[in-house]
């Protein structure tokens, strides 16, 4: 059974090589990629079943005597992450095949490098979850980052290069921080193996251990986009192609969260830095969601909610109790699926209605009822409406916070509740504007906003009042930025029409490939299924969290008496 452990890394890498050789045969390339990912899903499923029986599975690569070689460790936490991310990656892959990002449709991706790169990304993510030492974790970060650099700048358009520059520089900087922390760890302890470190770090002077912990936390906080290290995310994600944004939003930040969870529990169980992390969680939640409310593009809005909801996971890690860890793990699994599903739906909306800007959209619910349903369910799930899994995950985390009961923990509980409400506000606003009102209203609204402070406002006409950067009209408050965007929308409508004009001119492409809608629907179904199996899943995450708190399970599995 141990032989299965390296396969989630090996298969995608081999598949990537094969897919690269099949560059000129797109059909074969697609087949290879899909087969590989199906196999990874199956293997992850088997591993989840096996590890849940008891001890973690350990493989020493290259048959070096422990503890010299590189170890891959599959325990409950890593296998659950592996399974969820493999399912999500498969759904996104099917979706992107429907979208035609394989070289056939040459407009966006001139070369058929999409599939090999995607497989490298999956291999990197899998390796990060399985890595048993810090340097291997670094290498897997680099694998997935490199794949993400390529995917983010696909086609090399101006917007993507601009976003890619920031993304690459920020991530290279965080990689260097990681390297520095590895050098410090090695100088202090003489090993990078996580199991050995968990024994040796405890005997270090407190100050040295604290420096190592802060270095690692900073590194992972950049990856996970925890405030105040989150500013790179909302700007870089939305410019990428829809499936790429979806898979990034689902997986990449969660790898950072996983690394935080692993190092906090395994290496530093005695000093959880609860106060610092609680503050980080609180600020991440609130500042992220306030950013989301201000956006007038749905993709950017969702990127901000992504940042905001990372705060919930950090909250669980900060509490450092079984309930907290369990809630955080459940929340990660839930959030990976719904965040990806939402971005996939947005890709469909963009294709069906021509835009994701709230100024241009209207009446999508009538235009495409299926899309509306597929947006509505994960959106309500994100906001945490009972009985969906978002609600259950939040209840788990908030009750863990109340259990701890310090004033700061209770403050974060309050902030979490507020964040849920504000998330509901943000998605409800999106629903009202993009899906519910008619395209005509959207069109007139954009014109009304654009014309709001021109002098030609006459008596009796509907008027909008300008007060301190906001325009009041009806129940709407519109900020100056939106007005400028609206003006831009109206000004360039010749080349860039809004949905109303598209409908008038009958320019819409009614066709949505079945694989795109099918993949999205499947992912929405998975997110609903998480709700249905929430009981057993919480049981599983409880056991995983118990394993995390009792470090001996992990350490004993990796090191025998002889090798310590």
């Amino acid at each position, binding site marked *: 059974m141990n032989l299965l452990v390296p396969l989630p890394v090996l298969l995608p890498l081999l598949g990537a090589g094969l897919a690269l050789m099949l560059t000129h045969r797109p059909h074969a390339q697609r087949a290879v990629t899909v087969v590989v990912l199906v196999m990874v899903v199956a293997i992850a499923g088997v591993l989840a079943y096996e590890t849940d029986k008891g001890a973690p599975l350990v493989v020493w690569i290259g048959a070096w005597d422990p503890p010299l070689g590189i170890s891959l460790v599959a325990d409950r936490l890593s296998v659950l992450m592996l399974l969820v991310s493999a399912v999500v990656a498969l759904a996104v892959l099917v979706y992107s095949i429907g979208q035609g990002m394989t070289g056939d449709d040459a407009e966006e991706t001139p070369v058929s490098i999409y599939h090999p790169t995607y497989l490298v990304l999956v291999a990197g993510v899998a390796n990060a979850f399985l890595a048993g030492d810090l340097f291997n974790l670094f290498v897997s970060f680099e694998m997935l980052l490199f794949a993400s650099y390529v995917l983010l700048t696909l086609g090399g358009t101006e917007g993507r290069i601009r976003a890619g520059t920031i993304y690459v520089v920020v991530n290279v900087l965080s990689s260097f921080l990681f390297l520095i922390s590895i050098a410090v760890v090695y100088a202090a302890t003489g090993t990078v193996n996580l199991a050995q470190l968990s024994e040796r770090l405890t005997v270090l002077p407190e100050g040295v251990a604290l420096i190592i912990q802060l270095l690692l936390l900073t590194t992972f906080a950049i990856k996970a986009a925890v405030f105040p290290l989150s500013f790179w995310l909302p700007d870089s994600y939305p410019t990428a192609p829809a499936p790429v944004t979806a898979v990034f939003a689902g997986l990449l930040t969660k790898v950072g969260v996983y690394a935080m969870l692993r190092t906090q529990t395994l290496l530093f169980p005695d000093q959880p830095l609860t106060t610092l992390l609680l503050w980080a969680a609180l600020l991440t939640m609130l500042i992220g969601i306030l950013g989301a409310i201000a956006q007038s593009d749905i993709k950017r809005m969702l990127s901000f909610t992504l940042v905001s909801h990372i705060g919930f996971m950090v909250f669980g890690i900060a509490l450092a109790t079984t309930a907290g860890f369990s809630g955080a793990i459940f929340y990660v699994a839930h959030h990976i699926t719904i965040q990806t599903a939402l971005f996939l739906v947005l890709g469909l909306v963009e294709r069906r209605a021509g835009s994701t800007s709230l100024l241009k959209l209207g009446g999508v619910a009538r235009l495409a009822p299926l899309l509306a349903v597929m947006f509505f369910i994960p959106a309500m799930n994100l906001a945490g409406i009972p009985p969906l899994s978002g609600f259950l995950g939040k209840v788990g985390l908030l009750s863990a916070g109340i259990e701890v009961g310090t004033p700061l923990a209770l403050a974060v509980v309050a902030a979490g509740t507020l964040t849920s409400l504000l998330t509901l506000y943000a998605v409800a606003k999106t629903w009202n504007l993009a899906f519910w009102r008619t395209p005509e209203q959207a069109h007139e609204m954009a014109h009304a906003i654009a014309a709001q402070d021109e002098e030609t406002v006459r008596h009796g006409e509907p008027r909008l009042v300008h007060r301190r950067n906001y325009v009041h009209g009806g129940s709407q408050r519109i900020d*100056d930025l939106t007005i400028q965007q609206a003006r831009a929308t109206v000004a360039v409508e010749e080349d860039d029409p809004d949905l109303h004009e598209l409908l008038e001119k009958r320019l819409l492409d009614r066709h949505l490939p079945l694989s795109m809608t099918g993949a999205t629907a499947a992912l929405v179904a998975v997110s609903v299924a998480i709700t249905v199996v929430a009981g057993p899943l919480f049981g599983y995450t409880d056991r995983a969290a118990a394993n995390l708190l009792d470090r001996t399970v992990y350490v004993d599995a990796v090191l025998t008496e002889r090798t310590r």
Partner: protein
Amino acid sequence: MTVDLTLLLTAATMVGVGTYMLLERSLTRVLIGLVMLSNGINLGFLVASGPAGDPPLLSRYDAATISDPLPQAFVLTAIVITLGTVSFILAMAYRSWQLTGADDVQDDVEDASIRRLAAADEASEGFDLGESRSPDDEDDEIPEELGRERETR
């Protein structure tokens, strides 16, 4: 563990200079900063590996006198990764120059909007004052009208 001070100071200087260059606007300078940073960190690994010794070849040298090979392996991996990163950023800088005529790191959209908003603040304050002097300006009537207007459509 004894620490080689020369190596340590050189590493620290390179990291410092690299960080300074990283804060520059031009992507080429950022790139030079990244290279300096990475080389500084690689020197740091050599500091971490302890005093220099014989080459780590067990068949020829005594295990007691060889230097620690593991940090050297780390450094090799880091060098390879930096090479890839540098070439990617170079390509991006070139593409950016092709598209915009400059290789500057451009402003984040959010930053730009915040700045626009701040600039608009002064103007809107003046607008607000002028608005409040006009006799027929009442906040309340307007939203209702707009609401009714929408419904009738």
